[in-house]
């Protein structure tokens, strides 16, 4: 033991100890300070995140995806709740030693398997591994069935709710409405174009949770989800279904590959029907295949004779001919620039009006020789050929309209009767709005809006009026489309029957046709424009546009006139005098 002799000596020793203690304290302080810096600065974010994860549970709140409706409010797409039935293998037990309890468990199991539409052995297999706490027993269970299952009161059975897109109208509107993918985002059609508006915005809530993960109930922040907007289309479901059914009948009767139809409101440019047959089931799971596309906007074909009225309109507009001018179509065969142009038969000398009425290729070619390539090409562009329609539909194509400077004489001639170029059906329908609107091309739309749509002047009202008279003659009994007539109404239009192009060897497939008709009515005050095309009908059962597409036009137009209460303008005076009483359930008022 150290013996301290004096007070001075005592303090000397104390100083040494003091220094040691101070150094130790300083060292500890430095360590603590360093640790504080480490935690507060370098690991701040990580620790805060961990803390939040331990105390809080973030939950996404999903918005309702908006509905898609037709112009009259009929439902076309809606998100519906469906359930997945989840089983806790550790908790579910269908065995008991007590006979009474066993009888009850057997009954529960029988009811459960019956509601889930599965065999009891399959249920046992799924629940075999007792370590699995969440086994999906069945998905896509309706709310009614889910309620029945939950009422069984089986311990360990729960239900997870998800939302699935449901399309009540199925095939007829499938191409327009489209569908969503497994992630809930639009994949095709309106679902894709309007995905952002339909989807809405996710919300969020943050719950405070206890150590046992139980939600205590207090919240830190909350953001309510913003439901998606409802989208109202210009489509009229009644007319859409009518067009689809008419197409189905024709395609099946003539064993064609497919058919498409587009119906427009000539006054507003709104698409009232746009459908294709065959279609697909948007509620199914295998939405693949060649009939997924909306062929009215994605597929092109040579418009053929439906172009003839446009080349004639150019000649009328430029005062090169009048509607009564005579054209010599000869014996039905005409050699031009080394190539033969043919008609169905020899028409001889006919009027310009008859060139359209009988659809003479020679007549059209001869008229086109009187107009310049630049005038013809410019007019075709003004009618909307070679340009997208502006509805921004996924996969829409512009068709082909070659630069007129590269046209040879024969190309110029062939363009006048719709060969050597291509267009979509919707372009063809839009082009004919010019004849229905006193010479103005209507911008078309698929989504209802109050935006101002400005029409473009293409023809003078006089030329347009003259063209209407000429086009009306096509539906006369001796025209090419008498079957397009609508009882009680005056309708006008033009047939088109073209060879299909050979995609492999080039040139044409002379036994495969595209049969089309595009028309409008009532002629007195045109309200509707409709274009129909039938792809590759069986030749022996008839293939002309007037025979195949004409009746589809007639059937749909008749319904359109009736449902939109349009005045009949096609009855003869005598007929009208005989029918001038008011009809009311067989009784005279």
């Amino acid at each position, binding site marked *: 033991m150290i013996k301290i002799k004096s007070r001075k000596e005592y303090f000397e020793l104390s100083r040494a100890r003091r220094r040691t203690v101070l150094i130790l304290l300083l060292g500890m302080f430095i360590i603590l300070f360093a640790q504080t810096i480490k935690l507060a600065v370098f690991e701040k974010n990580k620790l805060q995140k961990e803390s939040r994860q331990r105390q809080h549970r973030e939950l996404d709140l999903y918005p309702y995806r908006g509905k898609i409706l037709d112009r009259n409010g009929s439902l076309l797409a809606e998100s519906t709740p469906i359930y997945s039935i989840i089983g806790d293998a550790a908790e579910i037990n269908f065995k008991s030693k007590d006979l009474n309890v066993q009888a009850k468990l057997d009954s529960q199991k029988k009811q459960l398997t019956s509601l889930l539409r599965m065999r009891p052995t399959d249920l046992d297999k799924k629940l075999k591994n007792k370590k699995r706490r969440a086994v999906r027993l069945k998905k896509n269970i309706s709310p009614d069935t889910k309620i029945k299952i939950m009422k069984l009161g089986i311990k360990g059975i729960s239900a997870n709710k998800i939302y699935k897109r449901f399309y009540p109208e199925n095939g007829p509107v499938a191409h327009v409405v489209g569908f969503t993918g497994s992630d809930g985002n639009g994949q095709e059609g309106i679902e894709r174009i309007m995905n952002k508006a339909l989807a809405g915005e996710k919300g969020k809530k943050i719950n405070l949770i206890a150590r046992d993960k139980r939600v205590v109930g*207090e919240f830190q922040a909350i953001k309510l989800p913003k439901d998606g907007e409802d989208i109202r289309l210009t489509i009229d479901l009644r007319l859409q*279904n009518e067009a689809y059914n008419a197409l189905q009948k024709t395609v099946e009767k003539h064993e064609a590959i497919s058919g498409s139809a587009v119906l427009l409101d000539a006054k507003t440019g709104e698409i009232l029907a746009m459908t294709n047959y065959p279609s697909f089931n948007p509620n199914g799971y295998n939405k693949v295949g060649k009939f997924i596309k909306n062929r009215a906007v994605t597929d092109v074909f040579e418009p053929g004779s439906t172009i003839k009225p446009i080349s004639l309109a150019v000649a009328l507009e430029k005062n090169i001919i009048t509607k009564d001018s005579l054209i010599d179509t000869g014996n039905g065969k005409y050699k031009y620039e080394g190539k033969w142009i043919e008609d169905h038969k020899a028409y001889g000398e006919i009027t310009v009006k008859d060139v359209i009425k009988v659809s003479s290729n020679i007549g059209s070619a001869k008229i086109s020789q009187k107009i310049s390539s630049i005038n013809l090409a410019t007019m075709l562009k003004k009618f909307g050929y070679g340009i997208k329609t502006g509805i921004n539909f996924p996969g829409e194509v512009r068709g082909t309209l070659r630069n007129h400077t590269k046209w040879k004489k024969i190309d110029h001639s062939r363009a006048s009767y719709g060969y050597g170029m291509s267009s979509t059906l919707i372009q063809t329908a839009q082009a004919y709005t010019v004849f229905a609107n006193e010479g103005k091309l209507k911008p078309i739309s698929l989504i209802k809006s109050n935006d101002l749509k400005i029409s473009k002047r293409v023809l003078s009202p006089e030329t347009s009026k003259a063209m209407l008279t000429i086009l009306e003659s096509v539906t006369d009994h001796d025209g090419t489309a008498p079957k397009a007539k609508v009882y009680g109404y005056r309708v006008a239009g033009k047939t088109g029957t073209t060879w299909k192009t050979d995609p492999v060897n080039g040139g044409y497939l002379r036994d495969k046709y595209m049969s089309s008709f595009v028309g409008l009515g009532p002629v007195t005050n045109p309200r509707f424009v409709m274009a129909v095309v039938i792809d590759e009908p069986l030749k022996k059962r008839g293939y002309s546009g007037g025979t195949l597409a004409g009746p589809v036009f007639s059937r749909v137009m008749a319904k359109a006139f009736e449902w939109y209460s349009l005045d009949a303008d096609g009855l003869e005076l005598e007929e009208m005098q005989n029918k*001038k009483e008011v009809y009311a359930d067989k009784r005279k008022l």
Partner: protein
Amino acid sequence: MKLNLILFVVLIIFALTTVNFKHQTRSNYAELDEENKKTLDLKDQQTMLRIEESSESRIEKIEKTAKQKLNMQVPSKKEKRVIIR
């Protein structure tokens, strides 16, 4: 001394108020959550009803009912009369 006492009382009041507000917030949130769940359930019900309505109001169904149950028929051309304006 007096001031300290007053501050102490004020402190107690604030403490109690804080506890009270926290409790109210919790119960209000629980209520809000409950109402949100009800809203969602009602929306689901509305969806199902809308689908049912859409299915019942299909033209084919209306026509079938009109023909079979109400014995209605589309008038023929002979039965129609035209109103001349």
